C-alpha cells in the first residue's frame, strides 16, 4: 500500500472535518490551560487548507503538502501555526517530487516533521505539547513495517491521554504550572485528530 496524492488530499480533508467538529472541545481545553483559541485557530487554518487544495490538481505529494504547509503557516497563527506549518513543510520536502510514498519514506517524512518541530519550538517530549503525540507515533511507525491504521490511531490516542498527567513547561500552559495537570494538552489533542484522520484514510485503502 502506498500513500498517494489522493490519500494526502483525503487526509487533509479529514483533518479539517475533525477540527471543525472538535473546535469547541479544543477551545475548552485551551481555556482551561491556555488562552482559549486553539480550536478556533485550527478550525480556521484547516478550513483554508481545504479551500486551497480543492482549488488545484496536484501531481506530487510534495506539492500538496507544501500548499498545506504554507496555508497552515499563514492561517493558523499562534504557536500551533508555525509548529504544524514546520511539520508539513518538512514532510513536503521529504515527499518532494514523489507521486506515491512507501512506508519507509512515509515514516522518514514524519520523523523529519517531528525533528523540525522540536527545533522550531526548542522543546522536547514530556513538556505537555504536540511533541508528546508525534514522538510516540513516529516511534511506533519506525518499529513497524507496514501501515496498521487502527494501531496507529490507538498509539496517538494513548499518547494524547498521557499528556493529561503531565505538567506543562512549554507554551502558554506552562504558566499554569502544577494546575496544568488534569487537562489534556490542546495541541496533543489536535495532533491526535491529525493521526486519527491519517488512520481513517489508510483504513479505506
Amino acid at each position, binding site marked *: 500500500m502506498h500513500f498517494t496524492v489522493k490519500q494526502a488530499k483525503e487526509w487533509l480533508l479529514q483533518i479539517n472535518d475533525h477540527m471543525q467538529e472538535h473546535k469547541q472541545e479544543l477551545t475548552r481545553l485551551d481555556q482551561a490551560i491556555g488562552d482559549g483559541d486553539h480550536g478556533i*485557530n485550527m478550525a480556521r487554518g484547516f478550513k483554508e487548507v481545504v479551500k486551497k487544495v480543492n482549488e488545484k490538481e496536484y501531481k506530487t505529494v510534495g506539492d500538496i503538502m507544501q500548499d498545506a504547509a504554507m496555508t497552515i503557516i499563514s492561517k493558523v497563527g499562534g504557536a500551533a501555526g508555525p509548529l504544524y506549518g514546520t511539520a508539513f513543510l518538512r514532510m513536503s520536502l521529504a515527499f518532494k517530487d514523489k507521486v506515491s510514498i512507501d512506508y519507509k519514506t512515509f515514516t522518514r517524512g514524519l520523523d523529519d516533521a517531528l525533528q523540525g518541530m522540536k527545533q522550531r519550538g526548542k522543546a522536547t517530549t514530556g513538556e505537555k505539547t504536540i511533541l508528546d503525540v508525534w514522538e510516540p507515533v513516529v516511534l511506533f511507525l519506525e518499529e513497524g513495517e507496514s501501515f496498521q491504521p487502527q494501531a496507529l490511531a490507538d498509539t496517538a490516542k494513548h499518547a494524547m491521554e498521557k499528556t493529561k498527567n503531565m505538567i506543562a513547561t512549554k507554551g502558554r500552559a*506552562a504558566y499554569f504550572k502544577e494546575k496544568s495537570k488534569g487537562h489534556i494538552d490542546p495541541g496533543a489533542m489536535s495532533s491526535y485528530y491529525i493521526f486519527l484522520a491519517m488512520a481513517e484514510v489508510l483504513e479505506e485503502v
Partner: protein
Amino acid sequence: MKKIINDPEQVAQEMITGMLLAAPNKLKQLKDTTVIMRKDAPIKRKVGIVSGGGSGHEPAHAGYIGSGMLDAAVIGEVFTSPSVDQVYEAIKAVDSGEGVFLVIKNYTGDVLNFEMAAELATAEGIQVEQIIVNDDVAVEDSSFTTGRRGIAGTIFIHKIVGAKANLGGSLEEIKRVAEKAVANVRSMGMAITPCSIPAAGEASFTLSEQEMEIGIGIHGEPGIERKPLATAKEIATELTQKILADINLQKNDEVAVLINGLGSTPDMELYILNKEVQQILKEKEIHVYQTFVGEYMTALEMGGCSFTLLKLDDELKSLLDHPSEAPHFIVK
C-alpha cells in the same frame, strides 16, 4: 458574552478596516495583509520598527504607529499571534535599506512567528534584529517556564526603540537600548473580571463576586494567587512590592510609572491606584520622572490593571522624552 460586533470570526479584519477609516491620512494597510503601517513608510535612512501580536490588546499595537514609535503593527486574530507571512510582509514593507527591528512579546506563538519571518527576511538580504520583551514578574523566570511574559512594559520599549530609530540609530544601537530598557522594565497585573474571545463565545475564566486574581496575564493566563478582593491600597502595595522585589531600585533612583487599565476598569480607579503607588514610591524615596495612567495594553474587556516601572538613566530619559506622533503616546 455581550459584544457589539457583526461576525465573531471577522472581528480583527473589521477592526482593521475601522482603524484605517479613522485615520486615512496617517495609516495604510499593506495589501492583502493584516499589517497597518505609517502612510509614509518606509522612512528613508531610518531603521524600520515593527511590533504586533494578537488583537484584543488595543490600543496595542496599532495605536503606537507614528513618527517616533512604530512603523508598522502586525495584527493577529484575537489573542493569536499573527502568522509568519504577515510579519514577513511587514518587515519587507518598512525596510528602507537600514534594516528592521522587531519588538516581540514573549509568547511562544509570537516568538515563533516573528523569528521565522526574520529568518525569511534575512534570507532575502534584509537586516533584522529583535528584542523579546518579558516584563511580567508574576511568572518567575525559571527553567520551569518558557520565561516571563511580555505585557504593558512593551509600550515603553516601543517608545525607546522608536526614539532611537528616529535619532538615526543603527540596528545595533537600537538593539543596545532595547536590551537596556528590557533589563530595566518590570510589570505585574491583576484582574477582577474576565474577558471573552468573541469566537469562543464565553468567558476565558471566572472569578466570584468577591475574588481577584493577582499576577494574571493579558490573555487571562493564571497568575500567582486568587484571593478576596482587596482595597486599591492593598492591591497597589502588593503589585508594587512584587515589582520592587525584582528590580534593583535605590533611594533617589528615577523611574517612569505606567498604571495600565486592562479594559473595563474606569480611569477613576486607575487614578486611585496611582495615588497609592506614588505614595509608596515617595516613601521609598524613589523619584518618579513621569507617570502614565490609562489604557495602554488591554485584554478585551477584562477588569483589572497592571503596573509597570521603568528604571531610567539619562539616555532612557532622553529617549522617553523624544517627540512621538503615535496617537496613543503623543510626546511633544
